[in-house]
């Protein structure tokens, strides 16, 4: 079982080139749960994720784990607790699945020690969880988008961290693979207690798979909580500027957002 950490941001301000994108964000990531950050394009959800995953240095405020600011922890040590799958990682030309997944072991290795039994076990376990063992010897280029994404997640799993950040792990995938990836991440959370924090575009999948939602608008946190209590049509309108009606997802019982456009409106005439 993964460890519990107090992971939070205090009065966080961050952005690129001195232009702040995030304004005074205070969040505490619920340990051993799945949190999803939602918001419109450009609202700062990726920036928040990247700042929490120490890719971006905050201009003010702090990200702390167990009370210690993350930038004060040696990077390799931090990487044993906190893993990250970026939105568009690079596939080295000609790399095999096992080689790629194995690179997730970097923070656990030192130059003198090299590869230990533990490393091999972590790699095969990660490949096992993501169902990619059969591809072990294949080149990444030969795999489909969904399989490829499973390989990347396995790489992050081989890192064996308690907390895992994922930046839009389902983007560019067909709906089938989106559901497959989110199911696998849920397995991971339920089975091992891995704290998962991710950015997702799809509001309905977010509402279904999240234990906790952070809703951002223009760099400010405007709501957080479990999906059934916070996802309402006024909130969605506030975040996305989209009129909608919220129903109950017939499969999961989670909130289901149905957008109201200018056409196809059979219930009432558009005002």
């Amino acid at each position, binding site marked *: 079982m993964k460890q519990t950490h107090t992971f939070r941001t205090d009065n966080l301000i961050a952005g690129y080139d001195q232009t702040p994108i995030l304004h005074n964000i205070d969040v505490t990531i619920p340990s051993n749960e799945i949190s999803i950050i939602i918001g419109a394009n450009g609202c700062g959800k990726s920036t928040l994720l990247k700042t929490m995953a120490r890719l971006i240095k905050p201009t003010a405020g702090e990200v702390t784990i167990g009370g210690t600011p993350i930038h004060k922890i040696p990077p390799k040590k*931090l990487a044993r607790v906190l893993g990250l799958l970026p939105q568009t990682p*690079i596939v080295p030309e000609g790399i095999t699945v096992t080689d790629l997944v194995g690179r997730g072991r*970097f923070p656990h290795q030192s130059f003198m020690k090299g590869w230990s039994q533990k490393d091999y076990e972590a790699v095969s376990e990660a490949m096992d969880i993501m169902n990619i063992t059969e591809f072990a010897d294949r080149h990444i280029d030969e795999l489909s988008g969904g399989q490829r994404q499973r390989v990347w997640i396995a790489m992050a799993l081989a890192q064996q961290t308690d907390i895992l950040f994922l930046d839009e792990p389902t983007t560019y995938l067909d709906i089938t693979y989106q559901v497959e990836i989110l199911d696998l991440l849920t397995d991971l959370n339920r089975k091992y207690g891995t704290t998962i924090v991710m950015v997702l575009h799809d509001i309905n999948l977010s509402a279904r798979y999240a234990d906790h939602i952070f809703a951002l608008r223009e760099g400010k946190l405007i709501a957080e909580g479990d999906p059934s209590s916070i996802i309402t049509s006024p909130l969605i309108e506030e975040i996305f500027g989209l009129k909608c009606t919220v129903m109950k997802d017939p499969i999961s019982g989670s909130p289901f957002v149905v957008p109201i456009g200018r056409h196809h409106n059979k219930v009432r005439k558009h005002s």
Partner: protein
Amino acid sequence: MNDLSVTAQKQWHLPKHFFKLLVISLILLAVCIFASLAFGSRAIAMNDIITGLFNADVQTHEANVVRQRIARTVFGLMCGAALGVSGALLQSVTRNPIADPSILGVNTGAALFVVCGIAFFNINSSAQFIVFALAGAILTAIFVYGIGAMGRGGATPLKLVLAGAATSAALSSLVMAVMIPRSSVMDQFRFWQVGSVGAGTWDSVTVFIPFLVVGLIIAVVTAPALNALALGDEAAKGLGVKTGTLRLIAALGGVMLCGVTTALAGPIGFIGLLAPHLIRLMIGPDLRFMIPMSAISGAIILSISDVAGRVLGSPGELEVGVVTAFVGAPVLILITMKAKMRAL
């Protein structure tokens, strides 16, 4: 679980065909060494090579020629290894398959300093050449990196290569500006500029050794972190790599290896590009294996080119830099076309 970990172990430990390739390379290397001792403007028989190598008392003409060729051969192998590893390091740092010391402008920077050294400070010993070439190489590398890192997104591979090409063009014209009015400089520089291991002596070997050792150590130690960097800066940071520090150290190692080689032998192009690329094609991109293999294949390519230059240019000889350019240019075009297709 056990079966799985065995698969992972086998796969991870060694790339496919690694041992086969290693054995073949070592045999090839031995053949190259033999050829380098035997062939030249004057071919020497096996007997005489053995006499020259192992019987120090014999003073025949053939034996002396062989002894002279030993230094040149060893020097050539070292240059090739240094260039191969330098290419592997610089390609990793810039994450660009066509990054080569000459493409990044590092060679031209070294050349400019050497020309200035010859023109204004009357340098002529190998130690002085090294100091000037290294200073030029390092300053150019910093300059190119500085330009490449400006603006949003930091030093992306594309920006680095563009900055390198622009800098290289500007520095070449400076080289010309310094050289053309001074005919004596031109004579001395002309020979150096082509790139040749023919002038390699035991002195140059001795001067070379410490730099080569330090460079190789840097390459081997940074290999695992460079493997992580290959997944992109964000992924590497997520794995706990200090990307800035890593780039600095690895680039310094690569620039030093190429700078020293350039100082001693003149700019020898394309080996830094060719060696790592061939190895990547054969055993995949794991740098822990690529780096030693790039060293070996760099040495092989350079000695083959050197011997070919001696045989083709007979009764004189063709400088190795000319030969590598002939072999390397078509390969560069092929690689670029392939890289372009991948990118599109």
